[in-house]
């Protein structure tokens, strides 16, 4: 293993909501300054924690990304997203394509993983780096039985410092639910 892999994984492990368990709120890591927005609705917990550009660069450079590619992703407003089915009344299913980011009056979903993968193909990214990228991302779609969860990177596709409101949508037994995070800010 590259000697740096362990520290990077530990760093990623630290990118979690400091106030995990709260019903909703915002917190700031006193050491890194990374901000977290979290909510818990209908038995589903959702949080976004800023991944600072230097943290993103470090992670992907050590996964074999060329400097330019790591820079493009690290400055695309990246968060560590955690979504879990803690106590929903059944299986939760979602697609990131159904989520909405509203920033400066424009609404659209987070930048799709497929878009990023197409960009990496254009740039000729090595296969190992592309695989690491894909599986480090928050799943584009997923199903969670009670107790299931994921933690992964999510790119808003916005410039550093941009602000947005996020509406996350999911379904349980054919019924639609949503949770909102407001005034989320991209790391600078």
């Amino acid at each position, binding site marked *: *293993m*590259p000697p*740096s*892999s*362990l*520290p*990077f*994984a*530990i*760093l*990623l*492990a*630290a990118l*979690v*909501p*400091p*106030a*995990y368990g709260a019903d909703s709120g915002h917190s700031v*890591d006193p*050491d*890194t300054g990374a901000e977290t927005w979290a909510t818990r609705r209908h038995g589903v917990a959702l949080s976004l924690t800023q991944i*600072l550009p*230097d*943290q993103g*660069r*470090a*992670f992907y*450079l050590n*996964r074999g990304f060329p*400097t330019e590619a790591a*820079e493009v992703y690290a400055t695309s407003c990246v968060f560590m997203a*955690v979504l*879990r089915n803690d106590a929903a009344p059944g299986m939760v299913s979602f697609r990131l394509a159904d989520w909405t980011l509203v920033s400066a009056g424009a609404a659209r979903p987070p930048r799709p993983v497929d878009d990023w993968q197409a960009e990496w193909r254009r740039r000729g990214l090595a*296969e*190992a780096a592309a*695989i*690491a990228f*894909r*599986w*480090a991302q*928050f*799943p*584009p*779609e*997923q*199903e*969670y*039985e*009670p*107790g*299931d*969860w*994921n*933690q*992964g990177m999510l790119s808003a596709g916005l410039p550093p410092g941009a602000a947005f409101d996020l509406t996350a949508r999911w379904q349980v037994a054919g019924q639609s639910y949503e949770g909102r995070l407001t005034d989320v800010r991209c790391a600078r």
Partner: protein
Amino acid sequence: MSVARAKSLLFVLAGLWLGAAAAADLPPLTHGLTAVAPGQPAPALKLVDLDGKPHDLASLKGKVVVVNFWATWCPPCRREMPALERLRRALPEVVVLAVDVGEDADTVFAFTGTLEPAPEFPLLLDRDSAALQAWRVKGLPSTFVVGPDGSLAYRAVGGREFDHPEVVAQLRRLAGGKK
């Protein structure tokens, strides 16, 4: 070394410290496995381990097999790995196979050497992620339990405490012919 790289490494050092400081705030590993509807055969799984030795899930028919998909850079994967080894020790009749996605043997070996307890179950390499896709994994970690008849019995998405009494009881029942 570029300035950007140097700054990144500073963040890594900060991360090392934060990893310990924030441990109490990590999303909790859950416990319990979700039953899979009967009659779904497990996909094929034929991979080599860190020593290049081939392993074939088909040869394990008659046993309960836990198939865990993971990577060394995946935080919940790292956290649940010692629990998998404790599960193996608690239920020696259950086979554990951990499938690393996209990394090489040196990377996996170096990481598992830091674990306590260190895994003694086979660590398989899915370098091109073909197995991951065949098993329709959507996120890491993902774990499947294959019953003695070769069909999927349970699944779990996200980190688990595999040595939790609830999980151990589920697997013990399965190994005893019940679900």
